[in-house]
Structure formats: structure tokens, C-alpha cells
């Protein structure tokens, strides 16, 4: 189960607050949310990972797909608030080199 709450402003900043597991059962929900944001011309998607306890390979792939789609409009996905397990999977897979990660929401939103 993955809950997604979306907050967006008029400048193309979309903050998605996720809670639950991002895995083979839920990745489509996030993909749908990405597509809706891209349709609304999102430039920067900020993922609040504070309440995400698990990310599987399917979850990582959907992040890649989102990043690929946003790249066409020179947008990006950034993340903050990852727990140690999620950080480990990012480090092990090398995804840390593709996505900028922050410790606080303020940094994630304000750093350009």
C-alpha cells in the first residue's frame, strides 16, 4: 500500500508525500502520479520519503522512468528524508549518482 499526497505550486514544483512501501504492487500508483504531474507541466518533483519504509527494484525503475520523462523538459526528481534502508538500496544500486537526495524538505525544495 502506498499513499501519495500531492502539493504543487504554479512554478512547476510538485511535492509528493509518500507513505508505505514502493514495490511491485504500488509502483504503478507512483507512475500514474508522475504522469499527472508531467501533464501539469511539473519541472521539479520532490519526493518526501520520510514515511517510505521499503523500495524494491520495481520502485527504483519507476523513479528512472519518471526521471527520463522529466529530462525531456529539463526537469528533475529529487528526494529527501530517506531512511537508512532506502539509502542503502540507493547506494548499492548506484541510483545515488542519478538522483540528488537531501536530508530536509527545505533543502530539497530550495536548492536549484
Amino acid at each position: 500500500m502506498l499513499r501519495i499526497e500531492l502539493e504543487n505550486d504554479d512554478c512547476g514544483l510538485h511535492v509528493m508525500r509518500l507513505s508505505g512501501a514502493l514495490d511491485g504492487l504500488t509502483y504503478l500508483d507512483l507512475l500514474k502520479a508522475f504522469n499527472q504531474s508531467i501533464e501539469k507541466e511539473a519541472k521539479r518533483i520532490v519526493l518526501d520519503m520520510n514515511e517510505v519504509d521499503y523500495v524494491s527494484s520495481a520502485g527504483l525503475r519507476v523513479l528512472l522512468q519518471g526521471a527520463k520523462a522529466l529530462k525531456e523538459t529539463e526537469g528533475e526528481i529529487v528526494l529527501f528524508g530517506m531512511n537508512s534502508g532506502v539509502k542503502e538500496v540507493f547506494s548499492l544500486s548506484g541510483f545515488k549518482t542519478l538522483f540528488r537526495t537531501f536530508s530536509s524538505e527545505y533543502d530539497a525544495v530550495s536548492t536549484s
Partner: protein
Amino acid sequence: MHNLIPILIAAVGLATLLNVVLKKINMPTVIGYICTGAIIGTVFDIHVHGNETLEHIAEFGVVFLMFSIGLEFSVSHLKSMKKEVFLFGLLQVGLCAAVFAAISHLIFDIELKAAIIVGFGLALSSTAIVLKILNETGKIKTEVGRNSLGILIFQDIAVIPILLLITIFTDTGRSLSELLLSTSMNAVLALGILIAIGKLALGHIFKAVAGTNSKEIYMGSILLTVVGASYIAHHFGFSYSLGGFIAGMMIADTIYKYQVEADLIPFRDLLLGVFFVSVGLQIDFNIVAANIVAVIALGAGVILVKTLAIFCLLLFSSSKKVALKSAITLCQVGEFSLVVFSLVMANKMMDPTAVQILMVIVIASMVIAPFLINNVEFLSGVLIKSKIEEEALDQSSMLGGHVILCGFGAFGRVVSEQLDESRINHVVLTNNTESFVKAKESHKTVVFGEPDDRDTLERLKIRDAMSVILALDDFEDVKKASASITLIDPKIKIIAKIPSEEERHELEDFNHELLLDGNQQTATVLVDQINRSRLLTKETATLQYLDDYSFDNPGETIQKIEREQTRLLDVISRSFNGLREEKDIMHIKAFHDSFKVLSEIIGGVITELMSSTSLSPKEYERINILLDNQHQLISMNDTLEKLGHELKAMKKDDKTKSLSEMTVEGLDAILLTLKDIAGDYDEDDMLMLEGITSNKKGGLFRIRESYLGAERDLDASGKSLLLSSTNHIDRLRSLFGQIGSNYRRLSEGV
């Protein structure tokens, strides 16, 4: 009386000639025999009716057939098929008899009693033809085979009440109750005698006979059993063949079943041939010529009505296609119908010409039957389109892929245990009573018989077997069995244990895949070899692109290699899933072994292509990239196999459990990206893959540092495991990147 010798020479010569031609066009020999009978009967003016000796000889063909069917039918087997025999059989005979009786009485104005007998007669199908073809084609074990066999068994039992019915309709001297009482008493007596002999004496007789080690005495005892049982049944008013069937059932429960069957087959087939010739002799071409339109129209009508009736009743329990295939298989009228109609004629229940027409229809339907049964797949496919899964299921039940293990001594037992551990389906064949008992006690599938007996080996479907293992103590037995197997098919792979290297040259003429000496170690190597062969067969069978390639078109073959190679990534992906789903290590090992075999096949085609064809510089460059990919993929599989063991071990420790799980997810994510690139190249995907696999070890170093630090408190083996696994993760990431780069070069049209 005709001079018998020229007739015999003509009949045997003609039958041989016709059957050679028929075999060439893949048709059953039944037709050859019937045609021989028809031609010989016309030329020499012989008719089977009234020739009691010929009738009896011919009938014993069916007796031996029923005996061999009985061998397949132990009492427990009959219980397991009670639905097919007693439900489907009863419904089929009842429904078809009612329909044909109604048509005969209402449309053809045949007197009611005669119409009922005609109905029952036409309801019967040909056990001799149907079972012979189903046995020959191995379809007896399919659902269609089970349905057909069950119904035919019931029909054979139903012959008794049908014959009784004729007696009731024509016997005016005795009352119905008297007839029923005497028949019941005879049935109880006949069954009682046969079962008592079977249960109490047969096992002991065959044990004593087997102890003499004389084939001659063994054959004599089989003949005595069959002929004796059929005589007892006949004496009490039942058909000879029912006696044969019960005798077979009695032996089915003993260990001598397969050996008896193997020794019996030449007799059975020869006598069945005589039976079919006798069927042909009954064709009177004058009646056929005079009533040709009626014969064709009525024959077609009978086949259609019977097909429709069987199809409708089987629809309740089988799929449409299986119901139709079973209906087509059983749509002909059988040999017992000829007996029924002969009695109708003898008892003057109907006009003799009408009965002759009926008999010609029966024979015509028997001639057509092999064509219909052999083309049942095509016919049912035209009429009903079924789902692919259903088809596949039907086919798979006919596949072999087992191992035949000859011998169950000390070595054979070790081999059998290891085969069980590797979950390889195998059947033990032994001629030693003690070994047989031991195998039975160990719940093995075991058959009592000679390992060099070709018929026994054929019964065990040696042609479909993955391999034959000769685990025999006596080297002479190894040689004899090797010779028999080579005679059956020189391509069958044999694995044998030999006493020492000196004997190796004596087996050079046979197709031995492996010759070994020693015991425990031999068994291990041997089972590994079998495992490998099994995987090779499986992977070869599932090749998607390289199942068909030609060196005449190297460009196309290179493309096929490229596609097949991407399937190696699928196999690796499945092993990731195995790690995630917590499958046992043997299960995951199977994926790695599968990978090795598939990559060996692909590697073989690459080498063959490079050595047998002249390639353009561009094609050489392309194949060089594929060769490099091949090396990287093999390295990836090896690394992953080692990492899999480490991750399993790490999962057992709470301190490293999460890391183990995250590693699987992280690496799988990279692999999925690589699979996308391999399947349909996209530069953006490639750039991402480059990003995540670039040699920036920061992340991995930090994880290693944190786990090796004091706060995690890992013991020495935990630390060693962590170091080794992170090295393997690093190696895998690098390999993913290198393979991705190769796909980029291929996409650039090198």
C-alpha cells in the same frame, strides 16, 4: 478344402507387401491385414463363417490383446478408472444402443427385438484397432486414451449381457429368471476359479518358472495361463477374451508383469494379424457391389451418429476438443459386433442380406478407423479451435524425459538416491527378485524384467527416455544390454559403469555417453551428467530464435544469436526472483545451470558460425561484440552464483538481513534497465545505466565502512562475508555497464 500352403504363402506375402507400403506412408498394419483377408477370400473363395478352426485361431488374437490390456489393469488401476469404465462406458453403450435401436425400428422397420440387438451391436467399438493404435502412438496415457480405454473395457464386459439378451430373445424353452440365475451362477463360478488361481497359485508358478532361467518354460507358462483362463471363461458361457482379460489382471499385480508382456507381444501381434485377416475374409464383394449406395450412406450415418452421441456425453466431463477426439477415436463399429450379428443371422432374427450389409458396414468402419484415429488431431483442430494452453497440456502428458536405471544393486541404489535428490524421474529395471523387493520397499518405480530385453525396454519408452544407466554388476550383462539398446536405436545415450578401464574398448561400438568405474563418486558424476543433459534438452527445446538457423545467411543468424543472447538476461533475472522469493539454494542453482547450458548452446553457434562461413568485416566485428558479451554474461552468472550464497548467509544474521534484501532489489533494478537496453536500445536508458554503474564507489564504500564499524558489531565471519559480497556487487555493477556499452556499439550498427 483348399491346399493350405499356397494360400498361406499368398496371404503372408501379400500382408508383408501391403504393410511395408502402408508403414512407408505411416498407416497402421491393421488395414494391410484386412485388405489381405478381403483379397485372399475373393481369389481363393474362402469364407471365415463355418470354418471353426480359423474362427478360433482368429479369436485368440483378441484374447491375447485383452490379456495384454488386462496386464495394464491391476484391480487398483480398475478402481482408479471407475468413472471412465462404469460411468462413461455405461452411458456410451446405453445412449448409442438406444439411438441405433430407435432408428432401426422406427425408420428401417426392423422388428423391435432385433432392433435392440442391432442397437447394442452398433454401439460397440473396435478394441483391437483402437487400443493397438493408442498403444503404438503412446496416446493411451492421455485423457483421450483414458476415456477410450475406459469405454472399451466396459463394452467388452457388456458383450456378456448382449449375448445373453440374444439368448433370452430367441430361447423360448427357458424363462428369463432361469437364464439370469444360470448366467449369474456361471459368472460367480468362473470369476471365483480364475481369481482363486490368480491369487493363490500364479505368483508361485511364475516364481518357480523364473527360477529355472529358461525362456522356453517361461513362454510355455504364459501360454498356459492365457489359454487356460480363456477356456475356463468360455466353458462357463463367456467369451474367450474376457478370460484372457481376467488372467492379465491377475498377473498385473505380480512382479512378472513386464517380463510376461515383453514375451507375449510377438504372439499377440501375430495372432491379431490372423484376426484382422479373418475380418477381411468376411467381406463379400458381391453384396458390397449390389448395395454400394446403402453401405456408404448407412456406414457414414452410423459413424456420424456414434461420434455425435459420444461427443455429447463426454462434454459433461472433458473439454470440447478432448470429447471430440475421444468420439472420433471410438466412432467405428467393432469386432464383437461381428460376433453379435453372426448370432443374429444364425438365430434368424433378421433378413440375412440385411445382416450381411450390417457386417460390411462394420468392416468398412474398421477399415476407415485407422485413418480417422491417425488424423484425429487435424480433424478436431478443423472443427474446434482450442486454447493453446490446453493443447500444450495434452502434448506434455505424452512426453518422456525419464531415466531408465538398469540394476538395483549397491551401485544402482546410490544412483537412484541421487536421482531422487535431483528430482529426476526414473524407473528401475531389474531381473533380480531380491533387488525388486528392495526397490519396492524404497517406494521406487520398479519393473521386473531383463535389461537386455528389447520389448521390455520399448515398454519403458526407451526412445523418449533422457538416458539409460547401466548399473549392472556383471560386465557381460552391460554388454548385452548395450547391444539391445543400440539395436533399438543407436542414438539412445547410454551411461554405464564398467569394472575397470580395460573393459572400455569392448563397448566402443555402442553409443556410450559416459563410462565410469567406482561407486559413490561415480554416482555423483553420473547424476551431474544426467542433470546437464536434462537442462540441455530443456533449453534446446525452449530456444526461441536459434531453434532454426542457417549459415547461408550469416546476417540473419547473427541477429538470432543477438536475440537469443538477451534471453540469458531473463535467466539471470529469474535467479534474482529466486533470491527474493526465498527459494532454496538448489532451486536457484537450477537457474545458474540453465544459464550455463543456454550460453553453451549460443557459444557453440557463434564458434560454428565463425569457423564455417566467410563473414564480412562488419559481421566479424558484430560477432566479436557478441562473443565479448558472452564472456561478460558468463562472468556475471558466476559472480551472481557466488553472491547468491553470500546473500543467503547474510540473511540469516539480523545485522545484515536488510542489506542482503536491499542488494537483491538494487542489483535487480540495474539488471531490468540493462534488459530494456538489450531488448530495445534507447540512448537515454544507456546514459542512466552508465550513471548508475560508473566507477564511483563512494556509496558502496560508505556501506562497507558503516557495517565494518564498531556499532554494527559483526563477528569475523560476518565481516569476511560483507567484504566478499560487496566486492561481488561492485564486480556485477561493472559487468552490467560493460554489457550495456556493447549493446550501444551493436545499436550503432557496427
